[in-house]
C-alpha cells in the first residue's frame, strides 16, 4: 500500500520539540530526511539509554520519535553546509525546523531565502510562542509553554503547585499540529502551485487541550482550579480517579445523559456483589442530573463506589467495564498497555529491527483501507544516509569523503 504522502520529501531540522512532527509525516509515507549537526542531535546524548549503554544509537528519546526518517549530518554553521542545504531544499517539498525565530534567517536560510530557492516549498517552523509578536523572542520549553497555556494551572492537587505530565505533551500536541499545517500547505500548493510559511506555536497549541474552557471563561467566569483526583463541576466536587485493590481507575459521576447508562450498569454490577445499598438501588436515574447534586449527595454516592472499587483489581474492573459498558478505565502503565488483549488483537505493537537489536514499538497511530500508515524504517544512525542523500545532488563518494574531512558532514 502507498502512504498518503508518498513522494513528498521533507527536510527535518528539528530538535526534540519537532521530532514527532517529522515522524508523523514519515509514518504517512513522506520521505523524511533528518538533518543533524555532525556531532549528532543532543537527544542522542540523553538518557535513558537502551540497556543502560551510553551510545548515540541507544538514546530511547532519539529512538522513540525519529522512526520513519532517513538521517544525514550537515553543518549549517559552515558556508558549504548551508549551500548543500539550499540545494536539498531546492528538491524538497517541506522544511521542518524548531530554531528560535530569526535563527534560520541569521544563517541565510530564512523563509525568504528558501522561497527564492524553491517557490513550491512549505516551510514549517515550530517555536514556543510563534514567529512574531511581543513574546516571539521568549525562551520556552514543555513546562513553560504548558504553564502559559492555562492547562498547567488546572492540573494537580489543590494544596500543591500546578503540575505537568512528566513527558512533554506540548511537543506531541505541537508535532501533530505542525503535521496538519504541513499537509494543509501541500493541499494549498496543489491549487496554487505555491508553497508557504507555516508558523506553529506550542503555547497556543496547548490552549486547545483545555477543551473550550478557556474561551468559556468569558461566559462562566471560571478561571480554572485544581482538584487533584477530583473534578469540580457546577456545585460539587467529585472523584475521577479512584483507588482500587491494586491501583487506580478512572470513573466519573458527571457527563450528562450519556453517562447514565454506565452508572445504572455499575450499580447493577455492585448489587450482584451485594454492595449496592437500598438507597443506591432506589436512585431514580431517569431524573439524575449531576449538575443539581449537593456535595452531601455526591459524597454519599462516592462512598458506595469507593467501597466497591476497593474490593476489586484494575483488571477485574476493566474486564467488567468492557462486558457491561461501564465507563471506567484502569490507570495504565506500560506494563498493562503492552499486555492489552485489545492492542494484541489489533497487532498494534511492532518489532523494529535495528543494528543494535530488535525493539518493540507502538505501531500505527491509525489504520486505513487504502493508505499505509506506521513505522516505515528504524530511527537513523548518525549520518546513516548522508552519502545516499547527497548522491541525489550528484555528489559522488569522493565528494562526500572530502566534505567529511572538512567537517561539513
Amino acid at each position, binding site marked *: 500500500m502507498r502512504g498518503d504522502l508518498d513522494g513528498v520529501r521533507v527536510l527535518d531540522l528539528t530538535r526534540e520539540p519537532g521530532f514527532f512532527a517529522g515522524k508523523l509525516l514519515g509514518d504517512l509515507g513522506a520521505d523524511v530526511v533528518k538533518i543533524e549537526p555532525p556531532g549528532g542531535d543532543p537527544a542522542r546524548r540523553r538518557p535513558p539509554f537502551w540497556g543502560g549503554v551510553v551510545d548515540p544509537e541507544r538514546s*530511547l528519546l532519539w*529512538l*522513540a520519535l525519529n522512526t520513519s526518517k532517513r538521517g544525514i549530518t550537515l553543518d549549517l554553521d559552515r558556508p558549504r553546509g548551508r549551500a548543500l542545504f539550499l540545494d536539498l531544499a531546492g528538491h524538497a517539498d517541506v522544511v521542518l525546523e524548531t530554531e528560535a525565530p530569526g535563527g534560520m534567517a541569521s544563517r541565510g536560510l530564512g523563509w525568504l531565502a528558501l522561497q527564492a530557492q524553491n517557490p513550491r516549498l512549505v516551510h514549517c517552523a515550530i517555536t514556543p510562542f510563534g514567529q512574531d*509578536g511581543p513574546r516571539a523572542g521568549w525562551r*520556552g*520549553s514543555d*513546562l*513553560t509553554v504548558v*504553564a502559559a497555556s*492555562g492547562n*498547567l494551572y488546572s492540573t494537580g492537587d489543590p494544596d500543591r*503547585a500546578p*503540575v505537568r*505530565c*512528566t*513527558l512533554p*505533551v506540548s511537543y506531541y500536541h505541537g508535532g501533530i499540529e505542525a503535521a*496538519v499545517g504541513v*499537509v*494543509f500547505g501541500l493541499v*494549498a500548493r*496543489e491549487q496554487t502551485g505555491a508553497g*508557504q510559511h*507555516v*508558523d506553529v*506555536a506550542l503555547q497556543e*497549541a496547548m*490552549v*486547545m*487541550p483545555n*477543551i473550550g474552557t478557556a*474561551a468559556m*471563561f468569558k461566559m462562566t467566569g471560571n478561571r*480554572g482550579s485544581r482538584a*487533584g*483526583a477530583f473534578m469540580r*463541576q457546577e456545585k460539587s466536587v467529585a472523584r475521577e480517579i479512584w483507588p482500587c485493590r491494586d491501583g*487506580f481507575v*478512572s470513573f466519573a459521576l458527571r457527563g*450528562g445523559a*450519556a*453517562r447514565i447508562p*454506565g452508572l445504572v450498569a455499575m450499580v447493577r454490577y455492585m448489587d450482584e456483589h451485594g454492595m449496592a445499598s437500598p438507597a443506591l438501588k432506589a436512585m431514580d436515574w431517569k431524573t439524575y442530573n449531576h449538575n443539581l447534586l449537593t456535595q452531601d449527595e455526591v459524597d454519599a454516592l462516592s462512598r458506595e463506589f469507593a467501597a466497591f472499587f476497593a474490593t476489586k483489581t484494575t483488571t477485574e474492573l476493566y474486564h467488567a*467495564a468492557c462486558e457491561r*459498558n461501564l*465507563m*471506567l*478505565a484502569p490507570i*495504565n502503565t*506500560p506494563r498493562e*498497555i*503492552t499486555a492489552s488483549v*485489545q*492492542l494484541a488483537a489489533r497487532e498494534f505493537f511492532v518489532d523494529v529491527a535495528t543494528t543494535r537489536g530488535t*525493539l518493540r514499538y*507502538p505501531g500505527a497511530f*491509525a*489504520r486505513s483501507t*487504502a*493508505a499505509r500508515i506506521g513505522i516505515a524504517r528504524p530511527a537513523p544512525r548518525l549520518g546513516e544516509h548522508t552519502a545516499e542523500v547527497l548522491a541525489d545532488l550528484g555528489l559522488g563518494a569522493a565528494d562526500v569523503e572530502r566534505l567529511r574531512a572538512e567537517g561539513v558532514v
Partner: protein
Amino acid sequence: MTDVFAGTTILEFGGGAAGPVATRYFADHGATVIRVESRQRPDFLRTLRLTPGAPGGLDGAHHFAVLNANKLSVALNLSKPEGVAVARQLALWADAVAENFAPGAMAKWGLDYASLVKDRADLVMISTCLNGQTGPERHYPGFGGQGSALAGFNHLTGWPDREPVGPFGTITDSLSPRFAALLLAGALFRRRRTGEGQHIDLSQVEGGIVCLTESILTYTANGEVLTRMGNRSRHEAPHGVFPCAGKDRWIAIVVHDDDDWRRLVRVLGDPAWATAPSLATPAGRLTQVDEVEKCLGEWTSTQDAGALAEHLQAAGVDATAVADFADLHEDPQLAHRGHFQSVEHAVLGRHPAETHAIRFSATAPRIHSAAPRLGEHTEHVLQRLLGMPADEYARLAAAGIFE
C-alpha cells in the same frame, strides 16, 4: 488568496470534542462543515451542564458553542428510515465524512463506510472512537477521561507520593482531533492526486500511546516503568513551578544547562546558596534539587509572577507565569496571533471562540459564524445545497424527520 478548503464539504456525525474539534481545522479555512444532529440523541456537550429551564435549552450550551463555531447543523431523526435516507444522500454528496460514534452505530443505519462506498467509490471517511473499530474491546464506551487513563497519561501526571491525576481537559480528547485533522487532510490530498478514497480508523487510545512511545520503549527495552515526578526533569534542575505573590499565583522556571543556571544565579543576585560550586553541574543540582527548589521558591514567593517572568526572560532564562483561563484573554502573544475570535451567538450573545495554533503565510484562520442551533440549517442545506424540492422537504418535515 482563497481559503484552502473553500468548496470542500465535510459531513460530521457524533459529538463531544474528539470528532468535532477535528473538522474545525477545515471550517476555519473555508470548508463547509455540516453536523448531522438529532433531538432524539443530542450531542452530549449540548446536555453536559444542562439544567431545567436553562436559557435556550440544547441551543444554550456554551461548551458546545465554543467548540462548534463555523459549522452548520442539520437535524435528522435517524430512528426513521427516511431520516437515514437523507443522511445517506448527504454522505454521498459531501467530500468527506467524519464520525465519532461508538463502533457499529453507523453500520446500524447503513451509513458505515462499507455501505456508503458501494455508491461512492472515492469516499473519504474517518471513524474515531476510544479503542478503534476492531478488536474485542471495540465497544468499550468511555469518555476522554478513560482514554487518557488507558493510554498511560494519568500514570505520568501528578506527584510521585500521591495518586495520579489527569492532565486537565482529558488529553486524548485534544490529541485525537489533531490526529483526525491530519489523517483527513492526508486523505483529501491523496484523493486530489490519485482519485482514491479511503476509510480511516483512529483509535484515540492508540494515538495517545504513540505519543508516549518514549515511555513504552523505556519499558520494552529496559523493563523500566517511567512514573510521574511532579514538575521535575530527569535531566536538569531546577525544573519546576514556584509560588509567587498573591493567591494561587505561580511561575514555571526551567534551567536547561549550566549557562542557564549561571544566568539564573545572576538574576538571584549571586546568593551564597546558589553560588556553591557543587551546584555548577547538572548532577550537583539534581542531587540537591530539594534544597535548590526550596531556596528558589522562597525567592519567588514575594514577587509578582508576570513581572518576574518578564525579568527572567530579559536575562535569557526560560520562565513563564502560570496562566489561568482569565489570564489567557489578557495574554499579549495569544492576542497577537488572534487566538480568540469573537462571534455573535443566538442565545449566548457575543462570545470568544478559539482557533488552532497554525498561522499560514497565505491565509489566516477565520471564525465567521457562531455554533449552530440544533437543526438551524436543515432547510438551507437540504434545499439550497443538496437541491431537495420544496414539496419533498415539507413532506419530510411534516413526518417528523427533521427532529
